[in-house]
C-alpha cells in the first residue's frame, strides 16, 4: 500500500532577498517554519532548511530500519540515539551525510551492532533515495 505525504511551501519575491514558509504538512505535526536563502547558506539563526529536513528524514529512517534489523536478529534495543549531519555546498549540492548512532542493546556485541547499522544505512528507503550523495559515512557504537 502506498503512503503519500504532502508539504506546502509559499515563497515571496526573489531568491536572495525573498523569504518562504513551510506552511503545512499532511500530518500537521509541524508548520509555519520560515526559510530563506541566507539562513540556508549562511547562519541559520533558528530557521530550518531543506538540508536540516533531509538530515531529520535520514536519521529517522535509519533509526527505524536499525531497530527492525536488530529485531530480525533477536535483539530488542532499549534506545538508539542517531544524528545525521548533511553537508551542503551552495552551487554544488549535498556533498556528504554523516550518520552517528549510539545504541543500548542488551546482549549484543559491538561487531554485530556495527554490521546491523551498516545494513540499515544501505537499505533504509531514505538511504536508497539519497544513494547519489557522494559520501555517506557511518559511526556506530554500543553504550551502557
Amino acid at each position, binding site marked *: 500500500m*502506498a*503512503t*503519500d*505525504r*504532502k*508539504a*506546502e*511551501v*509559499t*515563497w*515571496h*519575491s*526573489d531568491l*536572495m532577498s*525573498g523569504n*518562504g514558509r*513551510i506552511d503545512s*504538512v*499532511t*500530518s*500537521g*505535526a*509541524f508548520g509555519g*517554519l520560515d*526559510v530563506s536563502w541566507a539562513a540556508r*547558506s549562511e547562519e*541559520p539563526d*533558528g*530557521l*530550518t*532548511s*531543506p538540508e*536540516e*529536513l*533531509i*538530515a*531529520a*528524514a535520514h*536519521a*529517522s529512517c535509519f*533509526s*527505524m530500519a536499525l*531497530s527492525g534489523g536488530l*529485531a530480525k536478529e533477536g535483539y530488542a*534495543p*532499549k534506545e538508539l*540515539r*542517531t*544524528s*545525521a549531519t548533511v553537508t551542503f*555546498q*551552495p552551487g554544488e*549540492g*549535498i*556533498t556528504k551525510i554523516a550518520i552517528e548512532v549510539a545504541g543500548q542493546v542488551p546482549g549484543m556485541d559491538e561487531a554485530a551492532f556495527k554490521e546491523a547499522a551498516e545494513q540499515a544505512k544501505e537499505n533504509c*528507503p*531514505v538511504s*536508497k*533515495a539519497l544513494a*547519489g550523495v557522494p559520501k555517506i559515512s557511518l559511526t556506530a557504537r554500543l553504550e551502557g
Partner: protein
Amino acid sequence: MPRVERDAEVTWEGNVARGSGSISGGTGAFEDLPYSLATRIEKQDGKTSPEELLAAAHAACYAMSLAGELAGSGFAPDHLDVRAVVTLDQVEDGSHRIVASDILARARVTGMDDAALQDVADAANRGCTFSALIEASAKVTINAQLEGGS
C-alpha cells in the same frame, strides 16, 4: 561559498513494531517530533515521518530554486505556492521504497507567459540538486502553473 552543515537528532526506543522515536532539528526550528512505524505506513495520527520531512525539504528546495531562476530571467515572482507529495510504496521484493515526489508549483509572476514559465520550471528542477539526487529511487514530476492576472 563556504560549505554549510545542518544536523538533526533522533532518539528511538523499543523494537520496530511497537517502539517509537523522536526527531529534533539542530537549529531548534522543530523539536521532539514523535513518529513510529504504524504512523509512517498506516494511519498518520498527526505524526510526521521521514517521507513527510523529505516532502517539506523538496518543496522548500524547489521553491528557492524557482525563485532564483525566475529572478535570473528577469521575472522576480510576487508569490509562489509549491506543494510536494512524496510517495512511499512496497516494491516487488517486499521492501519499502520512496517511488515518487510530485511537485505542483503555482506562480504569480507579472508579465510572464506560460511557455516561459515551463522553461524556467524545468531549469529550477535541474537547479534543485535534491531533485536530481532522489531520482536514484523516485520519479520526480513538475507541474508548473501561472496564477492570477499575468
